[in-house]
């Protein structure tokens, strides 16, 4: 099953995402911010990255930018997870290389549906 890195500074969101994805059989690893995520992503190849946008240390947009620079993450789907559903933020994410976005609040089914879309 596909491996996913879930990045969020909020523990409750992180837990909820992990729980949902694990329940659906995905192999999930958590990261608490962009810096943590970048390290984890370099240690291991993930099939998809789901990241919050507004985080301390390194925000989600910078994380995506950084990851896209790595050859092994050039084509990996990356989704931003954000309440900032204004077009502006989404486009910022896209410009950085995000595949798409999931708007908070979302329920587990929505998350799984979206994920299925990128992972097939």
């Amino acid at each position, binding site marked *: 099953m596909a491996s996913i890195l879930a990045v969020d500074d909020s523990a*409750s969101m992180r837990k*909820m995402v992990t*729980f949902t994805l694990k329940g659906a059989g995905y192999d999930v690893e958590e990261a608490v911010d962009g810096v943590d995520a970048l390290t984890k992503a370099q240690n291991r190849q993930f099939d998809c990255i789901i990241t919050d946008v507004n985080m301390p240390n390194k925000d989600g947009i910078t994380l995506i930018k950084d990851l896209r620079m790595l050859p092994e993450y*050039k*084509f990996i789907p990356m989704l931003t997870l954000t309440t900032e559903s204004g077009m502006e933020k989404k486009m910022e994410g896209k410009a950085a290389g995000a595949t798409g976005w999931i708007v908070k609040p979302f329920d587990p089914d929505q998350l799984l549906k979206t994920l299925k879309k990128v992972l097939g």
Partner: protein
Amino acid sequence: MSIDMSQFHQVFFEECFEGLEAMESGLLNLDMGDIDSEVINTIFRGAHSIKGGSGTFGFNMVADFTHVMETLLDEMRDGRRKVTQNAINVLLGSVDCLREMLTSIQNEQAVDEHAVALHKAALEQELNGGNSAVLIADIPTITETEAKPTIHNSDKPEDSPKEAEVGWKIAFCPYLDLLKTGNDPVRMFRELAELGELTALISIQDVPSIFELDPEECNLSWDIKVTGEIPESEIREIFNWVEGDCELDIQAIAQKPAKPVSVAPKASQPLPIEDTVEEFKEPDPAIPEPSSPVPDISILAAPLELPKAFDKPEEVPVSRTRDAIKLPNVESEIKNTVAASTSIRVDTAKIDALINMVGEVVITQSMLGLVGENFTMDKLDQLKKGLAQLERHTRDLQQSVMNVRMLPISFVFSRFPRLVHDISSKLGKKIELKLVGENTEIDKSVVELINDPLVHLIRNSLDHGIEMPANRLAAGKHETGIIELKAYHRGGHIVIEIIDDGNGMDKKKLIGKAVEKGLIDESAVLTDKQAFELIFLPGFSTAEKLTDISGRGVGMDVVRRNIEALGGNIEISSELGKGTTIAIHLPLTLAILDGQSVAVGDETYIVPLVSIIESINITEKMLNKVAGKGETFRLRNHYIPIIRMHKVFNVKPKNTSKTAEGVIVVVEGQGVLCGLFVDDLLGQQQVVIKSLEANYRRVEGVSGATILGDGSVALILDVPGLVRFSSR
């Protein structure tokens, strides 16, 4: 798939309260004129996370409320809105409101919807009545899009389904970089195929020769036909993520012209200002207090009452003084601590250390097991080595476990900037609070109990210590007073100091007051230190006028009693005109105590080491017996009452009457010296405190019990309790 979301609630609430604290301290920083974008961003992030979480976990009321806060903060963050004092006050009020709201939800109580509505109205008023004209046009756009909870729809110009068409013709021409966003055309086609019958015509005219081909680029383009009754929104949803990465033309097969793809902002209206706005009034510090209730002194009369119950009466007046929209008062704060105390956050490094230690113990155990299996005398050395190792590991293990309970004192300190801000603005004083050593660690149980005494002491400093700005200038000081809250480790103790650069304590005034109140004799000669100690006497208050800030003189004796109940002590030093320093010494933990074991008859008792001043032998001749009042002896300049422990505990003594054969342990409790007469000193050791109340009942003069190395039980003496006992 349905998931029980309630399992994440506890984490969510903890996170929210942390977020609120961060927001509060951020807001207070802004207040000091420090307009730093990182600070605003931190505050924003707090609101943002709470909003995201509460929406996901179904607390819509919280989500709605934070949404307004977030919008306001977002504008501040982007520089679209200036940070004003008023906005900060409204936001601070909202933080309080939110905290109360979350507490209610957490405790499954009803939310005070009226207060929430008032705060929301205040926020909305701030948002709309804002200081920039551009604003009003901006806000609703954000609101409009954010309010929609569903996945990717907000950026589309047209959502309404059009069912009439029999199909769609799509011209899809990705830009070269499409693949680099992780989007895959094949994936999109698969989705289209799920909607209806799909035919895709690939155009390869742009594909370069094999030598020039860059496999990372997308050189293809497609003409797609999907047939079936499909709403346009569903088609658009599939291409939602690639808008801007391709040229896209979607047309209905029924020859209807396609809607333009560009996004046109909707005509927007300002948010409605609710009628309730009128009711919201700014707090007016000038309005005098409704008469504060007389604190319930009966609680204070109970001598051995536990600390928590104490400061409550004094808090009442202050919570009364809060704004018209009254927010969390002490009761709810207490509830908070109770709720929060059920779980603890531990650094994973500490857990790792713990697991490591357990591993070591297991290894030692198995080693000893091997030695014991076929024990012969020549293995004695091995056995001794093993036991020594076990001892070391047990000690380390104990330390690691204790470490888990240690929290940085910032848990307590972090509340004070707000307290100082609120009270100083109410008093019209300018005061800066400096926090030093916030990372000093202290046991969780101590953290919970030290809060109330500290609040009281800081209020005292604010109210009585720091002078009014004009007086300060006249005294040649800087207009802004400084209160420093400092924590550091010394020995096995933590020291917390509250240092103010205010007026200091006036010895003459203190003595005068004490004489007036009949607390001391007029002829008494007191040292500075003794004079300062006067403030710890019950019923002492030097403030010329009683204020609602620092209570009415029922405070300091309670503070001292609370701190002593924690096994600590409190010291004052002060210089007139320069300021006052109050130092609190506390044990690092309440679970372990450094004790001196003493023998009384066949029994062993433990005296906390902190309260021991010295231990001496005296002769019968040094005793003064006062009829009906017990006995005293003279130690340098003090006459010290003697408590014969065997009488207190009704134990048959070894040295029935020969004073010279016993030992006097001089102890201090509540500032009073006292000599405990025991048979012998046995040794110092660390003991683990076991609660007596939990297993038996409370006994006067005893604070707990412990199990000694030989398995017998020893009682731990409660020195302040004994001192009170002796003075009766």
